[in-house]
């Protein structure tokens, strides 16, 4: 995936994830930025306010009193035609919940960076993915970065995707593991990003000479408007949002491919693979956790097991076909989740089971809840968790009602 045929004059810099996100927003020429500081997201907003203050980014930086207001500012600015950005974490994202629905329902191409952090109670500022997973059903596209280069690249691509399908995009990256860890990042030139990212064309036009109402009380049934045109009821608008997400897979892949042609780093798939070709045991994970899984897979290979990794890059729309194709003929699939749907299982595990339903050659599926509240996840622990099932898989029990946890209970 990371081909080295770089055609452009990017500069390699040592950046942490937050700085990489801010660089991406600067290069994408965001016009309105509204955010409220929260650990571990704060450095993104600090860096962006510096860019604006120094005149390196021609944007309005709106200091707001809460995350709810931050996203309210962004949806309003997006509606009048500005390219917008906000960033948050955990409780900040939860506080945005209402406006997340609003941005998606109004079909506004807002881009939000979610620096993944655990939810209280009890308080934690450390990483897991419960915050963004809890916003799964708000109608946003969700992309998970596995390193800081992907943080930068995904945000630039997010604008192209969002402004093509008119669906907001949340780019998620793990708090501290990525947000506060420096690694080499190729920062593209402004000229190249300008070639990749055309100006935003809003579908909502606010013009005093031609006044419009947007998103007023909409009754259940379709209705004829003042011009005699039959307009959508609430349910038709919901159908269109689902349809936009269903159809966005092709756009996401095309945008990723075009990005690759210009910048030498292709993102032409919803998922990515590590040593998957001949693997009969596959570990599945999302974000930086999936990088740890690649180390675990290598350990399992050394121990003589044919192990590989399927990394989920895009969680919404969930790439059911891609996942089914990648997993249906395997012997064992072990899904690692840094989140849990309490009373059920990890959110990605449920998706994977759903994607594989009805496949005649479905693998045994096991789920592990790991790394909640910043608990370190070691590659050795992941490899051991897989080995456990390799040794005791003779019972033919494909499914397991509840997940296992890697913790000290």
């Amino acid at each position, binding site marked *: 995936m990371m081909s080295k045929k770089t055609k452009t004059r990017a500069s390699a810099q040592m950046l942490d994830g937050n700085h990489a996100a801010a660089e991406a927003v600067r290069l994408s020429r965001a016009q309105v930025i509204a955010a409220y500081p929260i650990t571990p997201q704060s450095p993104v907003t600090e860096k962006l306010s510096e860019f604006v203050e120094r005149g390196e980014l021609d944007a309005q930086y709106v200091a707001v009193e809460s995350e709810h207001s931050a996203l309210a500012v962004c949806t309003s600015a997006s509606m009048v035609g500005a390219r917008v950005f906000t960033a948050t974490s955990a409780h900040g994202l939860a506080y945005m919940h209402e406006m997340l629905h609003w941005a998606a329902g109004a*079909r506004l191409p807002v881009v939000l960076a979610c620096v993944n952090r655990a939810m209280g109670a009890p308080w934690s500022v450390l990483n897991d993915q419960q915050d963004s997973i809890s916003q799964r059903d708000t109608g946003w596209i969700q992309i998970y970065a596995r390193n800081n280069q992907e943080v930068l690249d995904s945000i630039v691509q997010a604008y192209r995707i969002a402004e093509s399908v008119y669906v907001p995009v949340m780019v998620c990256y793990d708090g501290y593991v990525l947000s506060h860890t420096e690694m080499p990042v190729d920062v593209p030139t402004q000229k190249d990003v300008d070639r990749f990212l055309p100006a935003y064309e809003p579908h*909502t036009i606010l013009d005093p000479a031609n006044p419009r109402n947007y998103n007023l009380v909409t009754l259940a049934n379709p209705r004829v408007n003042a011009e005699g045109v039959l307009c959508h009821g609430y349910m038709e608008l919901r159908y269109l949002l689902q349809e936009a997400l269903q159809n966005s897979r092709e756009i996401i892949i095309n945008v990723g491919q075009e990005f690759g042609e210009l910048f030498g780093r292709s993102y032409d798939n919803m998922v990515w693979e590590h040593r998957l070709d001949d693997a009969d045991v596959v570990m599945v994970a999302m974000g930086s956790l999936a990088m740890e899984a690649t180390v675990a897979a290598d350990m399992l290979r050394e121990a003589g097991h044919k192990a590989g990794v399927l990394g989920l890059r895009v969680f919404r729309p969930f790439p059911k076909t891609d996942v089914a194709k990648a997993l249906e003929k395997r012997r064992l699939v072990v899904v690692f989740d840094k989140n849990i749907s309490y009373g059920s299982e990890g959110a990605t595990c449920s998706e994977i089971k759903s994607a594989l339903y009805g496949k005649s050659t479905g693998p045994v599926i096991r789920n592990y809840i790991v790394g909640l509240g910043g608990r370190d996840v070691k590659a050795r622990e992941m490899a051991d968790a897989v080995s456990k099932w390799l040794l005791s898989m003779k019972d033919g029990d494909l499914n397991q009602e509840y997940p296992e946890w890697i913790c000290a209970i």
Partner: protein
Amino acid sequence: MGTRDCQHICDESSPAIGEAGKTGDWRDAFPSIDNEKCIPARQNKPACFLCWLYCPEAVVSKTVPIQIDMEYCKGCGICAEICPAHAITMISEESLSTTEKG
């Protein structure tokens, strides 16, 4: 025929009366005006108009005599409450249809 022809992807419309549909059918009581008591009608000149001022749906006209647009009146009864001359009475829609049937 479906609704795609409107080509909207979010809810949108141009400002017009009855934007949210005909809300008069939400009503279960309607205001009945007694022009013998209503101040502008009795004085035959523009006066009072508190019902016009307080109506949250803007369906009361500022005319002599006043008119209420029953296609959009939701029957909240605020006009009847506010009327200093007690000229407006709320009558249940149910009793009307019973009377009509009777």
